């Protein structure tokens, strides 16, 4: 299986042993060994997944690296975090996706399935659209963030509220809802500017970045 190793905060190394890895287009910065690159549409997934991505605008441009050797990935000087996925589902936005491999099943999820109307509102508020990308199985996903990605643990006793624009993804058995703080001040332009929050409850981890999109 492809081994992920963090080189520094902005660079990740993946060791391939006659294997394949999928990464954001243009993210490969160097490689050693016998590795070939090609545009990937299926990304190790089925046709249905590809069609789903195409119609939902979660159509991330991916390229596949295949062979034996080491590949180094980095993107735009953004910070890289390797998120382990252990028999659970990781939800991330497709634009923060750096690299993953075929051990994980990628899918596209309608936010409405996850939190009903609230989920749709969340997508609209955070500017992420109505769909998000999911990964299921056992493996690793490398994601990008502006500043270090911060993992906030969520337990049934301690839910967490985050700014929708700072949210980058979450894992575990978590449900999200929108908390609004709309009152008369909002409408006369005297609001705090923090009128919408996403509240995550359940058990798992929420990832945020120290930057608002």
């Amino acid at each position: 299986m492809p081994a992920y190793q963090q080189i520094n905060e902005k660079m990740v190394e993946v060791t391939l042993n006659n294997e394949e890895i999928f990464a954001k287009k243009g993210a490969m910065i160097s490689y050693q060994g016998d590795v070939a690159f090609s545009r990937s549409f299926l990304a190790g997934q089925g046709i249905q997944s590809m069609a789903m991505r195409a119609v939902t605008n979660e159509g991330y441009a991916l390229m596949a690296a295949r062979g034996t050797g080491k590949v180094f990935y980095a993107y735009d000087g953004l910070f890289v975090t390797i998120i382990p996925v252990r028999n659970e589902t990781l939800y991330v936005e497709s634009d923060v996706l750096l690299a993953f491999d075929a051990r994980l099943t990628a899918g596209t999820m309608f936010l409405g399935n996850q939190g009903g109307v609230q989920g749709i509102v969340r997508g609209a508020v955070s500017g992420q659209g109505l769909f998000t990308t999911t990964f299921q199985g056992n493996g690793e996903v490398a994601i990008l963030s502006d500043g270090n990605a911060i993992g906030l643990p969520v337990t049934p006793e301690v839910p967490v509220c985050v700014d929708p624009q700072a949210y980058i993804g979450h894992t575990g058995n978590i449900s999200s809802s929108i908390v609004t703080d709309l009152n008369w001040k909002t409408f006369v332009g005297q609001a705090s500017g923090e009128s919408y929050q996403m509240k995550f409850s359940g058990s798992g981890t929420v990832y945020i970045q120290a930057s608002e999109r």
Partner: protein
Amino acid sequence: MSTVYNPGNLPSNDNLNRFSFVIDVKDQMFIRKGKMIAFYGGLSFEAMGTSIVDMLVRHAFNAPKYIHDFVVVQGGGQLILGDNGNDLACYDLDAANMTVRAKNLLAFTKDVICQESTLPGFLTMIGTGKVIASSNGPVHFLELPCRVDEQAVLGWADCPSPSYRYDYEHVKGFVSAVGAVTGFTLSGEEKQVDFTGSGTVLVQSSELGLAGSGVLANIISQLSSLAPTELSMLGTSVQEVMKQQRR
């Protein structure tokens, strides 16, 4: 956590933190314009081409395209350099040569000879002394052989000049070939800088966020060799690129 520094407790020829570097200036050095953030002592900054430093420049600075990017610092004192929050590192050359991306070259001592590399946008440093360069994220050193995306090459040392390698292996099937022509199936990773032999390659995360006039100077210097028809073709492609960047 936040130390207050004075001339007595500043590090000597070492990093102050990841993003700034302190140089003990004894006589003369070259530094990139605008990268001085503070200094102690009596230092003066002279543009190159002025008579006082001309003798030095003639010997050490052999890259006329970049002459306006650098100044000579003279005197004695402690000079602090910084570059827009990029990581700084110092490389000690000992009768060696090292090539760095011109945009990332911040300073070098006067015994190091600076010449233009055959790869445009890079400068080759030859001799014995210190070279200070910035990078986006910490520098990663790679052993040869390896292939590196052009944007991520910070520099290389002790190895033959690199060449370009085009990876068109996947353009074999008919669909791929059609796609490649239209740019549809390209992976964005078709062209890499290929390093062979032995030595070290310096790799950074991205070249974003560094301004320098080197690339522009390179293009302008070659314009005189173009025919009128070629110039108008260049104008068209400039507009094409501008259109794409606006998107």
